């Protein structure tokens, strides 16, 4: 995460070269020894926890092997072919797409509303903020169990409310209900993350602009939409990218706790499928192929976002 923050600020720097002109480049002298040494810990971590596992995943994805690794066959791209031919996998892609987009919209939307609301409050603002931030401290698995319980059709209090309203709510049986439930749980867990960035972003909006608009007769909502929101552009862009990554990779524990990918694969998002095929089914080749594909999807998604969305973002505040 910190790397991504640095990334976005570096990008904003690129558009304002006058800042970079002030940087000194010769702080370490001419010898490459010290900088290399200082970089070494980070490089080693990258090597052991990123490059080597990625390479192994690439290798594994073209192999058919038993879990103990005693019997290994090279199968070219069979794992990928099988995957792309399987309806199960295509369903998983569709589910992931809907889940990620819905989660993104819901999370960012709620966070914006909350940030707007707490920005308006003068008394007790920090108390409200703390309360809104609390879910971030809850482990995803616990959050999942909480939601699963609240909406359990047999015993959950909120499910009883829904039944009372005449809605036949049952995430154990109904794929749509299950997808709604995990989307809600995942969003709820992530709203606070978006919220904290937006609150900080709002603090950076110049008071003078807001006051000028107020003098001109713009109401609070108009001021928020026309002035604050455009200025939050870079933050919102960054959060969209982060939300996609969250949806792709970090919602695994929530899915595991709420639905285990069911019913009938309705919530079997890609990252959960990677886990189940690798660690439960012990189908290492397929699991590795899936993680390679998942990584590619995430990469393409992020690139597209930067390519098309980034242009619309105004960094020059």
């Amino acid at each position: 995460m910190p790397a991504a923050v640095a990334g976005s600020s570096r990008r904003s720097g690129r558009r304002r070269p006058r800042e970079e002109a002030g940087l000194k480049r010769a702080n370490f002298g001419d010898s490459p020894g010290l900088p290399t040494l200082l970089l070494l810990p980070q490089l080693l971590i990258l090597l052991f926890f990123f490059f080597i596992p990625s390479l192994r995943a690439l290798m594994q994805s073209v192999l058919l092997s038993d879990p103990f690794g005693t019997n290994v066959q090279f199968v070219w791209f069979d794992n990928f072919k099988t995957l792309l031919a399987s309806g199960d996998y295509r369903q998983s892609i569709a589910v992931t797409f809907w889940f990620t987009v819905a989660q993104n919209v819901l999370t960012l939307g709620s966070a914006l509303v909350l940030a707007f609301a707490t920005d308006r409050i003068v008394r007790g603002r920090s108390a409200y903020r703390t309360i809104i931030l609390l879910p971030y401290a809850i482990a995803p698995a616990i959050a999942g169990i909480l939601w699963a319980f609240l909406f359990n059709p047999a015993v959950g209090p909120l499910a009883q409310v829904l039944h009372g309203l005449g809605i036949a709510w049952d995430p154990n049986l109904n794929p749509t209900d299950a997808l709604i439930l995990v989307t809600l749980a995942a969003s709820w867990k992530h709203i606070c993350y978006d919220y904290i960035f937006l609150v900080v972003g709002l603090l950076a909006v110049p008071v003078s602009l807001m006051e000028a608009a107020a003098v001109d007769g713009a109401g609070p909502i108009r001021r928020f939409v026309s002035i604050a929101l455009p200025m939050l552009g870079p933050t919102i862009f960054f959060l969209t990218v982060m939300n996609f990554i969250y949806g792709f990779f970090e919602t695994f524990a929530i899915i595991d706790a709420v639905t285990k990918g069911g019913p009938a694969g309705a919530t079997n998002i890609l990252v959960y499928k990677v886990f189940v095929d690798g660690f439960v089914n012990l189908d290492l080749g397929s699991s590795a192929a899936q993680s390679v594909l998942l990584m590619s999807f995430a990469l393409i998604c992020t690139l597209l976002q930067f390519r098309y969305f980034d242009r619309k973002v105004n960094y020059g505040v």
Partner: protein
Amino acid sequence: MGRKVAFIAALFGALALVGPAQARVEVQWWHAMSGVLGDRLNELVEKFNKSQDKYTIVAVAKGNYDEVTNGVIAAYRAKRPPEMVQIAERGYMTMLLSGAIVPVQDLVEQKGYKIDFSDFIKPVASFWSYKGRMSAMPFNSSTPIFWYNKDHFQKAGFDKPADTWQELEKQLYTIKSKGISECGTVLPGDFYWSLLENYSAINNQPYGTLANGFDGLGTEFVYNKTKVVSQVARLKKWLDDGVMQIAGQGFSPEQLFTSGRCSTFVNSTASHGNIERNATINWSATFLPHESDINPPLNSTIGGGAIWVMKGHTPERYEAVAAFLDFVAQPETQVWWHGATGYVPATNRAYAVARERGYYKDHPTREIAVLQLSRGTPNENSRGFRFGNFVQTMLAQRQEVEAVFAGQKQPQQAMDDAVKRGNEILRQFEKLNAGKTPETERP
């Protein structure tokens, strides 16, 4: 992951070297028992450790069956496997053909212990042995039985649950319509095991070709052409009519039963310990129902786990392992374990001892599993299930059944799809293990 485990293992290895020289040989046993069952397992290990002064067994709980399997795979790949590991029945073929194990009968005989392997009760012995030799030590064997709420049945005017599905269905609908309980039954979390696999065995339905996989790797699923399809349709009907409920994630079917909300449920005989501890209701248990046109019903099959011995250790450690396995097979140990947990006694002698002591007079429901397992003459439909990648095929099947419950597919279509997906998975296992015979290298 392998790397990390190797590093941690190496660290512990180094620590062990600087520690004081130990007179006792220490061996590790990784297992998947938690809760009441985990406590009992620790007692068992303690009993063994106290019974002699040469060996120490260290029991390590590694999470559920999947997590234990993953742990041992990672450890084996990092060349630091434990000496013994408890693996669920579904992992049998994976372990047998892994090339990573030492068959227990070879080990025990080589170390000079005389365990009478022919005395193991039939379904247990036939499941865990390959070509007549025991590959793993049967440890916690269970079978599903039918649990019921006595009060609910009495209120509805029945003595006990009926023997056949047809009669039982009427009873459950009566209980529901009279408002005695909210649901007649609750779908077990492992319904594929109790209500599809064991259902096939009891009702003499073939599940796969080649004697359900016992006769070779070329096996194919055939349950889309048997009564399993109507069984799935029955479950769907019960769900639609509110006679059956699904407990869902974060909540166990057992809780719906023990709280008196649902009148019956199908679950392993191993839940005796938990139910005795938690239930506030007047419960009992009986045999699983069978179809009315199947008479007599056959035996059910076993689930649970066995102890596998891993390759790559020193002879003196295998001494310890053999001593422990011998201890586990003793009738005394088996009787104690049976009583403490509800798992089936693995040998005929242990069963006889428990009977002689009048144990089943006080605990009649504990005998159901043994009687159900040894009912009739096992044939190739009821000997058990021996499929490669069995967990994977089961999950595919489960997904298809859920599609029926969700109203997306008709039972026949879903079972056809499940069989098709399952067969592809079986072919993959066959391809990987083509022409392979299990490892018989002596330790």
